[in-house]
């Protein structure tokens, strides 16, 4: 177990530039100690005007998100289904850039940790070190790179560790035990369990086998195990909570924001939708 000890944990003051962003693993541990399950909410940065992003993040927290996954738009999102692909394309069509996204995140007044979810080329292009530092400087707590496997991640992990950024790696139903062990060893925030083979997107049912994957993951780590891909209803969230430490909801929220977001006055609607996922 490599969770950071508490004296290392120095929350930053909300003095205008940065707000306190607890480390991902600690936030999730705290929930577990209280006997609670986590809800992680994914939105694509820049699908709505970036000046609305702080309000959107705040609305997710107000609705009961324990963790926010912020999607960084990429031109070629091979792990994403139609909903998130389209949101990513809309953000790029809007001309959104990483620096602008990070600027908007800085403005956000949220206490729950934010991790980014994106693709390897953005990190490589910026330089792993600069990418990790710029995320951390914006108050982001961790990063998940969808197409980065532990074998390729040596340089990335060093850069993230140096910047004080948590890393999250994915496990899948196809992963061997050796691969699960490697993903667990490389992760510091939590371990992401992909519910099924496939891309992101809403499904009618979460496969029962995901419980087995979570059990296999738990044999290798004390970190929390969160399940994502295909989770879009309260019933599915609760089904995942039966077997895992938390559930990630993405495409459902992306679709809701795309259809219903009319500006900052829609914040209440978003909070209610998140609250409904917990109920």
């Amino acid at each position, binding site marked *: 177990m490599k969770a950071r000890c508490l004296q290392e944990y120095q929350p930053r003051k909300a003095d205008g530039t940065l707000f306190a962003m607890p480390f991902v693993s600690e936030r999730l541990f705290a929930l577990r100690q209280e006997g609670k399950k986590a809800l992680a909410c994914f939105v694509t940065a820049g699908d709505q005007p970036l000046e609305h992003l702080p309000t959107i993040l705040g609305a997710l927290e107000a609705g009961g998100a324990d963790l926010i996954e912020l999607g960084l738009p990429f031109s070629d999102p091979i792990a994403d289904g139609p909903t998130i692909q389209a949101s990513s394309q809309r953000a790029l069509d809007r001309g959104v850039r990483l620096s602008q996204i990070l600027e908007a995140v800085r403005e956000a007044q949220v206490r729950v940790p934010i991790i980014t979810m994106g693709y390897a080329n953005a990190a490589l292009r910026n330089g792993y070190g600069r990418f990790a530092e710029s995320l951390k400087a914006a108050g982001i707590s961790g990063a998940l790179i969808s197409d980065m*496997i532990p074998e390729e991640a040596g340089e990335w992990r060093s850069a993230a560790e140096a910047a004080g950024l948590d890393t999250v790696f994915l496990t*899948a139903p196809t992963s061997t035990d050796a691969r699960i062990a490697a993903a667990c060893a490389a992760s510091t925030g939590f371990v992401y369990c992909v519910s099924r083979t496939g891309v992101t997107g809403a499904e009618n049912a979460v496969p029962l086998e995901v419980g087995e994957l979570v059990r296999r993951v738990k044999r290798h780590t004390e970190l929390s195990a969160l399940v994502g891909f295909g989770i879009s209803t309260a019933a599915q969230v609760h089904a995942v909570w039966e077997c895992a430490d938390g559930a990630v909801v993405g495409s459902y929220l992306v679709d809701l924001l795309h259809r219903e977001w009319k500006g900052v006055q829609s914040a209440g609607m978003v909070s209610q939708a998140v609250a409904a996922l917990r109920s």
Partner: protein
Amino acid sequence: MNLDAVPNKAGRFGAYGGRYVPETLVPALDELEAAFRQAWSDQEWRRELTHHHRHTIGRPTPLTHADNLSNELGFDVWIKREDLCHTGSHKLNNALGQALLARRMGKKRIIAETGAGQHGVATATACAMFGMQCVVYMGEEDVQRQQLNVFRMRLLGAEVVPVHSGTKTLKDATNEAMRDWVTNVGSTHYIVGSCVGPHPYPWMVRCLQQLIGEEAKTQMLELAGGLPTAVVACVGGGSNAIGIFHAFLGDENVRLIGVEAGGEGIETGKHAAPLSAGSPGILHGSCSYLMQDDDGQVIGTHSISAGLDYPGVGPEHAMLKDAKRAEYLSATDQEALHAFAWLSRSEGIIPAFESAHAFAALKRGLFKTGDAVLVNLSGRGDKDMESASRILSLKGV
């Protein structure tokens, strides 16, 4: 350069290659790598492959001395005739090999991406032969400009799925094929059409294409009495180029020249020449030269030839460029069109738009009297007749 050491165990060609894919696919890539290593060293499997080379594809393909081009240019031009392969291009060398491997692995369903449609047709052909289900992803724009090949694939029993996302060309067809594979990985083998993608694809595709150069080398020694001065091939993903280059890598006096798609000109930004004007990046599972903006977003490409209209390139080419073992230049749409008409009239050979880029390099003043230049004619031009007649009649040719 120690060629026996590439790719290394991690699938690295120097700094390039590797595996940047969703976790779900990694066990399938491991399984594929193990299966290919085993098959490649299995003499029985190799005999079966060779049988198909001879009796299905029609190998060895001829080496033609281009008498009229040679007279005009003042140096010898030798043409490796991959256009005479069954299905009309070098693509069947790879598709048939991978289909044989998929059959050995017990996979019943095959998917592929295609740009110009040549890889799609080759894959559909192999699937028809082996009774496999075949789904080909093709960008909507390419479906429009390569309708003949769309019809051929459907006639061969393949399902052609137009891809409407992104730039609607080869890049996005590849994205969609990868998404299909990540979803259906248990039942499905993905026949990647070029020496791109995550390890083991760049290495495996090169292994399946390297006989182009092996044959050409033997033929040059026999017909020309020596090695060529230079070997020239077009480069999109780069499979025909690596296929003909590979046998000559150790012959340091043989220049290796790859010709990328210059589109409307490198200076206009409307091209598909990552080795000439890109930078290292990660796309479709491997690290190589890539056309991208400074935020790491992959930028749109342009080429008259659908098969070269791709923002990335195989990692082995990236390594050869950095090691200066191969030279990479580009030819514009205009130069390719001229070469297309020139080869047709001079030699009675109608090349694919892709291959015409390689011939355009012959007019660059790179060679001198006494040189013997080997050009890979990777495919025939039948698929491009409709586009060519439209464009060339507009230009009054």
